[in-house]
């Protein structure tokens, strides 16, 4: 079986060359670029013998962590077809267990597999050049290869099981946004490090942490000793075993469950509705997203708030407050207004809300669904704003405080808004009208002020500790972070629960209000 699968895999590789000239040219070009890159990495690794031992260790651990993470995340996000998809072996009548082993053993044979093999070989050279025992170096390399290819297999299987029929431009957009939310701050952090004169100490610390995580443990075996070595060894072997078990399980699932026959067109033309879960809450979320991204009334809000939060600080700059201080002000303001934006969300539906009422939608589902778009918009915006502002400010130590303050303001705002939009909706411009055509106000300013002030008051702890961390005591940054996250989460949960209960109790009032719009 193994030999057979290996032959198949080889045949697939050769078969890739059997294509139309244009396609073949493209493939060969891509392969050449990849080969060059791998060669460059290998050469760089082999020449690591010139740098001190410690720095070489840090670099290999961080580098191989990135490698493993890439092998896991890229197949998950890109949704590539697995050429050795276990389901293709169903017709052979083989046991799932044997298929799992065969495919796993054959998987280093393939472009990504060969890349990781080459890199691992170069790492062996680098490690032995720095005096690691040859045995440990080889073991580390083997574990690295095994972890990478298994991670990729598992990722492809998970993507096949869970995500296949949800693939759509919207989902890709979501994933890219999510990746950006993580990657951009990390990149900003990396750029802001002090690179001249050896490796920055933060990177060394990061490597120490990575050495005991599944990502970096394998390569850390070669560069550590004593108790640290044992810890890394345990994590690395445990990771490999866990991945192998997961792979077995996934193969079994894939081979024994029938693939759901998705009737052609079932998900076609549903847009966001196909991405969100098929529950009332998910549907409401999808509908809200459609409105947020197409209705000028919402778009105006989304555009005005970030611009305003930046513009609001310009007077401070004019009067001579230093830029480092001013830079910290926009993110909290942005967070505050983003949370406050939805305080009258229900009114934007106008009489359309009858649909939720007549369907007997649970209040909590309604509330949560409506919060999804603002979270989708708010989190990336805040991540960017916080990163930018800390970068300008220059001290990464206050990052936790700033995150805590922003989370607190945003989440308490959302929680209070969830209540206020049911309890005290007020008239807004109707669907289809321009965003700046305001109806004659019948109240509303009271609610606006209450939500805004409430969010600020509830965020007082985070703000206070954040201020302390800014004025000297950097340890308070984490206190601010935890208090902000704690208060924010609590208020959000309570707000959604109370708002949901109110929604179910006040259906008649809500309808009567809606009909006055």
């Amino acid at each position, binding site marked *: 079986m193994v030999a057979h699968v290996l032959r198949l895999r080889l045949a697939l590789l050769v078969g890739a060359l059997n294509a139309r000239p244009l396609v073949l040219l493209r493939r060969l070009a891509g392969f050449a670029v990849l080969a060059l890159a791998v060669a460059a990495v290998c050469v760089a690794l082999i020449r690591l013998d010139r740098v001190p031992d410690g720095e070489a260790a840090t670099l290999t651990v961080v580098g191989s962590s990135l490698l493993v993470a890439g092998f896991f995340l890229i197949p998950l996000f890109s949704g590539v077809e697995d050429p050795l998809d276990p389901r293709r072996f169903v017709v052979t009548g083989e046991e799932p267990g044997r298929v799992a082993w065969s495919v796993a053993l054959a998987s280093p044979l393939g472009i990504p597999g060969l890349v990781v093999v080459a890199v691992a070989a170069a790492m062996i050279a680098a490690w032995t050049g720095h005096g690691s025992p040859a045995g440990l170096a080889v073991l580390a390399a083997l574990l690295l290869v095994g972890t990478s290819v298994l991670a990729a297999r598992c990722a492809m299987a998970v993507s096949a099981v869970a995500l296949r029929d949800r693939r759509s431009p919207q989902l890709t957009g979501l994933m890219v946004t999510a990746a950006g939310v993580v990657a951009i701050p990390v990149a900003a952090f990396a750029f802001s490090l002090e690179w001249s004169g050896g490796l920055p100490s933060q990177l060394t610390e990061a490597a120490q942490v990575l050495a005991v995580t599944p990502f970096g443990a394998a390569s850390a075996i070669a560069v550590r000793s004593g108790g640290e070595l044992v810890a890394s060894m345990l994590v690395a072997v445990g990771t490999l075993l866990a991945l192998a078990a997961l792979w077995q399980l996934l193969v079994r699932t894939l081979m024994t469950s029938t693939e759901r026959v998705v009737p052609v067109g079932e998900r076609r033309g*549903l847009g966001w*509705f196909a991405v969100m879960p098929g529950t009332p809450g998910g549907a*409401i979320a999808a509908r809200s997203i459609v409105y947020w991204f197409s209705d000028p009334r919402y778009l105006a809000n989304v555009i005005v708030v970030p611009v305003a939060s930046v513009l609001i600080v310009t007077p401070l700059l004019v009067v001579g407050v230093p830029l480092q201080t001013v830079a910290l002000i926009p993110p909290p303001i942005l967070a505050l207004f983003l949370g406050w934006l939805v305080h009258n969300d229900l009114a934007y539906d106008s009489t359309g809300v009858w649909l939720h009422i007549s369907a007997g939608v649970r209040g909590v589902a309604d509330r949560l669904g409506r919060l999804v778009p603002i979270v989708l918009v708010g989190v990336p915006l805040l991540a960017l704003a916080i990163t930018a502002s800390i970068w300008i400010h220059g001290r990464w130590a206050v990052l936790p405080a700033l995150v805590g303050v922003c989370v607190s303001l945003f989440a308490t705002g959302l929680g209070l808004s969830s209540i206020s939009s049911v309890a005290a909706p007020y008239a807004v411009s109707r*669907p289809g009208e321009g965003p700046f055509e305001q109806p004659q106000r019948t109240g509303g300013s009271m609610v606006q002020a209450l939500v805004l002030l409430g969010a600020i008051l509830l965020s007082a702890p985070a703000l206070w500790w954040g201020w302390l961390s800014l004025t000297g005591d950097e340890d308070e940054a984490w206190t601010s972070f935890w208090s902000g996250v704690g208060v924010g989460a609590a208020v959000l949960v309570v707000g959604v629960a109370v708002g949901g209960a109110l929604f179910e109790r006040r259906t008649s009032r809500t309808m009567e209000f809606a009909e006055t719009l």
Partner: protein
Amino acid sequence: MTPPKTRPPRKKAPVSGAGTAVPPPPEVPAAVAAAELPGTPVDADAPEVPPKPEIPASVAAARFEEPIVPDEEPQDLDEGTDVAAGDPDPIPETEPVAEAEPEPVREAEPEPMPEPEPEGEPEPVIEPEPESPADTHPEVIEVPQETEDIEVSNVAGVSVPADAAEVEEPSDVTVDPQEGPGPTDADAPTVAFEVEEAEELAPEAPATAVMPQMNAEVETEASEETTRPTPALRMTDVSKSFGRTRAVDAVDLEIPAGSFYGIVGPNGAGKTTTLSMIAGLLRPDGGTIEVGGIDLRRDPRGAKALMGVLPDRLRTFERLTGRQLLHYYGVLRGLRGAVVAERTEDLGRAFDLTAALARPVSDYSAGMTKKIMLAGAMIHAPRLLVLDEPFEAVDPVSSEVILDILSAYVARGGTVVLSSHGMELVERVCDGVAVIVSGQVLAKGTVDEVRGDHTLAERFMQLSGGLSDVEGLEWLHTYSD
């Protein structure tokens, strides 16, 4: 006085007549063909259902008993009415009042029959909730009524396929085109077909409203069964005021299950308010509303689950495409995505909206918007449809199609409550009618009871105050130019 009509022919004669007179005929084969189509995707879907393959056998047994028992009986009836369809004589004019009475009684009759054998419905096979009697009940009502309504169901091809085929097969009515898949199959496949159909075809299986509350309802129903069936809707002393205007004043209504009920009244009489209260959108100031035996105030979610609602002059989410909107309707009602997708296609075909499903609803005409909202109201196969002005702005062809669908729905035990300005329409399709003026019910009963010796329009004029006060517009006739 009135042309000789019995109730059944009255109902179907115009419908089928319309079917032959107006364009719909092409629609019949189309719809029938369509009715077959669902079979195919559904069959492809069948692997989803199989987890419970053992049951179908017993279901098959049960199923084959069931139809047979009522079959014999209504078959004659069928023959009878069939003739009646041709020439309106046989059972005819017992005078209107008497005619009115039998209606609920006849419905009460078949109901008890299924109750003793709670095992034989496919429903639980599909939907995880193990509520059995819920289904047997409408299923059986359905059988006798259906036989008498073969024409109707034919025209409204959407809803019919297998059941009609099943009944027709023995009775040898030649309606073959649609029988294609169903009867030729062996026993087991037939059952499978029925199983899906129960799930997939909205008007056909009123009881498939996927809500757990059904249980409660069934129980109350069962206990009251001995006395009389639970009405689809009962309003007792319902009032509603807006500020100092009394929009609805002590309204009492009782609408039996399986009837087509019209609420008529002049502008501003409180029809919309009444229907909004029934739909659970507005809360009455006083009085109780029971939907299928469930108190709307005590268990709003349970009662709402039994209803499909089409409001008048309320917005819908117009930025969604038609398909998205129907998906939204269905998922909010707790249906699974696959079910919604299939029903969306069926409804799109039935309402002639297929080509428009991909466009945003904001681009629809008023009539199309009405139709898509009506489709949405039906997507979860409710027991009671509450429709406010369903025919306003709808073109005549579509009106007939909608009427056909609704008639088939009512024939299978569904209940329709609608408000309308069109007296002729109400006179033609409704079993019962209530005239509301200034928030009060001035007359109610069967159409014949209410109209007495006049047409409904005349009677309505009398009740609503008539034409007497058209005075004081003399200046209008002086022509200022």
